[in-house]
């Protein structure tokens, strides 16, 4: 352990601002990257699922329409 106290740890021998700025920004960027990637993965899945559902609905509607036409003709 290189530091006597917590405040010394925070101070970083006078370079606290720069060290914590570096670590803070880096962590923030990395977490953004990680979370952003996960979110976009989930969004893509959800979007595909939504589309599948929509298609099924449209397919059903098309089928019903076709049936109606058949009954109308007969």
């Amino acid at each position: 352990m290189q530091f006597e106290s917590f405040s010394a740890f925070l101070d970083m021998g006078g370079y606290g601002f720069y060290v914590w700025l570096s670590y803070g920004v880096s962590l923030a960027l990395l977490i953004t990257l990680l979370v952003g990637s996960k979110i976009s993965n989930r969004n893509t899945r959800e979007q595909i699922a939504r589309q599948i559902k929509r298609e099924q609905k449209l397919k059903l509607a098309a089928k019903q329409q076709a049936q109606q036409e058949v009954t109308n003709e007969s």
Partner: protein
Amino acid sequence: MWKWLHPYANPEVSYHFTDKIKPWFGWATFLLLSIGFVWALLFAPADYQQGESFRIFYIHVPSAILSAGIYAGMATAALCSLVWQFKLADASVSALAPIGAIFTAIALVTGAAWGKPMWGTWWVWDARLTSELILLFLYLGVIALNNAFDDKQMAGKAAGILALVGVINLPIIKYSVEWWNTLHQGATVSKLGAPAMAAEMYWPFLFCFLGFIGLVGYVTCIRFQTEVISRNKMRPWVRALVCDNNQPEEAK
């Protein structure tokens, strides 16, 4: 010779393969980075010249190295996509670009935050700094181009061409910037030499570096999967996959 690669050119196979290796990357990253950061911040000795500010080193250098490494990977993928028409390769171009950009940004920010106390200025037009900045521009260009297309397939190919042009340019840029700076001798800054590093500094660096590599691997897996499924929306296997995965989530 390429026979063994053949099954992995199939999107479905490579998707599942990625699924398998992803958790390994995840755990490795978690372990390595938590050890590395604690070591770097708490236990590694301060530099005799730079004092505690040296702790920036443990992020700065790994991300600087990775920023170049990821570009190399991206360009390789682009080459595969262009020459062998690998559909998956341009998915990895799209997946890698943002990761590389983030690491380049980290190298720049940490470098600037290190430069202020060490050199007394946030920024100088030094060769290394400048070429890192240009690398960021190249990454952002690739990302912007990738996002500008609505069609993912086209986007990946176009971004790949740009990445490839960029990689031909990258050595030229690096060389030119280095040369430019030595010619216009100006406010040159004495750089930290490369002394044989002490072991107690080297180990935490290694942990951080490997941790970052693990992180790159993990995020690449996630992004690659996203790209693959969004390119294969119409294929039955993606549809089955999405339906399986979503049902339990909705049940919760």
